[in-house]
């Protein structure tokens, strides 16, 4: 298949691995920020093809995984309201909240609908004027502009029964929080391709300038990832720290200005609470005043009980790259894809699910 097979070519992959082996002299720790990178690194068996000098750590770039229990509890509470249709992307369904999950609520009769696009949520709201349609707005810069567009359209249509439960997060501030963590000595970042398609290359510049960390914005196919690793090692071996784009077929230096314009028409930057990383300044989004009517929390205060998390779950440390799933006492024993304790096991993009699914 065009644009796929070229990037999964065995000979080219072997060639890149050879170049990495030849170029790499010092041990390096590289973090792939994005969950899709993590999954593909496992799916194609990339780790075992790399030389011992190269360690890959998985970062916090899975939107499901970094969503705190409180947000899930709120979504569950909303779904229990008779006049609410809760609309979500599929991978939030099985995430355990403090005492339930959306999948369990659905089995008990809650009207919860899985969609592929936020536009479907808008359609549901239009078709069900007597109900409140609440979209669980989780995700990074990749998807938040589409949610912004849905709000702008809802405003134009005069829809008064469409709301969002806001859980959007921004990636670069989380990367800043990671590099400031003393436990984590990183040598470079494999930056997310889709987030960067929206935000471009500039938001990572501070990592190269202030923290002397090379960054390469990478595509998702195995050859993309291998080439990005080579580009990072090349910089490290030359003691350079720059932001480079490997994923040129999708990412432009300036990103997608139109998407950014829509995003910031509906939203403004705020602080946000990340699972595992805690409160990170400037890492979230909130609705601008003129869009406040769409904020479900603003319109209908949601009461949730005490927010509980399993004390043995180490998803937090895994999201920071400090620990791997193999360090977790629950991994495989109690926490499995069919009985997930933490979000890193639920999400198909989560580190624990990737370890479980693809490695012994």
């Amino acid at each position, binding site marked *: *298949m065009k644009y*796929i097979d070229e990037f*999964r*070519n*065995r000979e080219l*992959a*072997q060639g890149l691995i050879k170049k990495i082996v030849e170029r790499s002299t010092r041990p390096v720790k590289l973090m792939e920020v994005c969950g*899709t990178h993590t999954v593909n690194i*496992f*799916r*194609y*068996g*990339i*780790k*075992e*093809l790399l030389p011992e000098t190269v360690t890959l750590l998985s970062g916090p770039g899975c*939107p*499901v995984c970094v969503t705190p229990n409180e947000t899930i509890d709120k979504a569950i509470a909303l779904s229990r309201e008779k006049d609410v249709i809760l609309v979500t*992307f*599929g*991978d*939030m*369904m*099985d995430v355990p909240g403090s005492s339930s999950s959306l*999948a*369990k609520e*659905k*089995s*008990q009769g809650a009207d919860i609908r*899985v969609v*592929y696009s936020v536009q479907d949520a808008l359609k549901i709201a239009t078709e069900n004027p007597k109900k409140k349609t609440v979209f669980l707005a*989780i*995700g*990074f810069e*990749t*998807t938040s502009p589409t949610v912004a567009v849905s709000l702008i359209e809802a405003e134009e249509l005069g829809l008064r029964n469409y709301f969002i439960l806001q859980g959007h997060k921004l990636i670069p501030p989380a990367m800043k929080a990671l590099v400031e963590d003393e436990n984590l000595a990183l040598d470079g970042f494999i930056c997310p391709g*889709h987030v960067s398609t929206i935000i471009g290359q500039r938001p990572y510049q501070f990592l190269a300038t202030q923290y002397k960390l090379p960054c390469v914005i990478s595509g998702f196919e*195995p*050859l993309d990832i291998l080439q990005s690793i080579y580009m990072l090692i090349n910089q490290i071996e030359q003691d350079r720290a720059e932001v480079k784009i490997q994923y040129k077929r999708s990412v432009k230096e300036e990103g997608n200005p139109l998407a950014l314009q829509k995003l910031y028409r509906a939203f403004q930057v705020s602080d946000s609470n990340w699972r595992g990383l805690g409160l990170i300044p400037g890492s979230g989004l909130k609705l601008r005043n003129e869009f406040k009517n769409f904020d479900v929390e603003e319109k209908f205060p949601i009461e949730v009980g005490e927010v509980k998390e399993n004390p043995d779950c180490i998803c937090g440390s895994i999201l920071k790259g400090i620990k791997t799933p193999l360090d977790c006492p629950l991994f495989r024993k109690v926490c*499995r*894809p*069919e009985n997930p304790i933490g979000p890193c096991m639920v999400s*198909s*993009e989560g580190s624990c699910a990737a370890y*479980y*699914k*693809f*490695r*012994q």
Partner: protein
Amino acid sequence: MEDNILLAHGSGGKLSHQLIKDLFLPQYDNPVLAKLDDAAKLRLTGDCLAYTTDSYVVNPLFFKGGDIGRLAVCGTVNDLAMTGAKPLYLTASFIIEEGLPLAALKKILISMKQASEEAEVEVVAGDTKVVEKGAADKLFITTSGIGVIEKGLNIAGANAKAGDRVILSGDIAEHGVAILVEREGMELDVEIKSDVAPLNHLVAQMLKVSRKIRCLRDPTRGGLATTLNELATQSEVGIRIEEDKLSIKEGVRGVCEILGLDPLYVGNEGKLVAVVDPEDSQSVLEKMRQHPYGTGAQIIGEVVEKPTGRVFMKTSIGGSRIVDMLAGEQLPRIC
């Protein structure tokens, strides 16, 4: 165990297996059922009978390449064929929701007739129940089937041995993707059709050239990955396959790429996996390729001694990874 049935209990993966193991088997435990092959083998005198039952619920009822009727016949015929049986008779039960257009029902019945003619089986008994609107989703069909297994033939999920070859009869993931495309109303430039088809004639051809076919299974719900895991577990062996040997039609692959689905876990309704003694694998493969439902057959891997119950895949770029059983449902991702 959960208090309520979750959708994931119907996915064919781990929760489905757990449900059967924990809830169904303890009630009806007997040696015939406990084998958990696709059809029960009933020993009378002389030949062995194969007997199986399956319910069909699919939304939408009509999809490209077939409908619930064709599915209900082929699914049960295939379950019988996977034990090496020659399918003979089917029964069919219909749970019909009030309001279903009779024209739709008729179209489905005609389609069942055509499928049973193709498979050369007869529907010898049936039943209908109509339930109130909302108590069922349009139409549910249950079919049961009986077939005869020739004396001395022993095909079962527990028979795979190290060194055996694993043959797959063609392109994967077509049925699941066709249903999804239909259900979501996705508009595509390519036509994606379900592969739903009766495989008993293909199996009969294979048996003509080999008596060393150890296991047969149709990778339906849960896809190829789940079927291979079942065989590895039942036979207490490992299975190694090669990604490059798997073939997927371009349109099907495109939809999987867009939606983030792994085609290894997407259901098929007209494909089979055969585990065959290495000596006979080439002749079986050639015979399969001569049959219309086996033209795309490939040897995709082999059975190894260890690690037992595990399936590994050599990836397209030369790495290696585990292929686990499906846990829960495949869910569309955020990004």
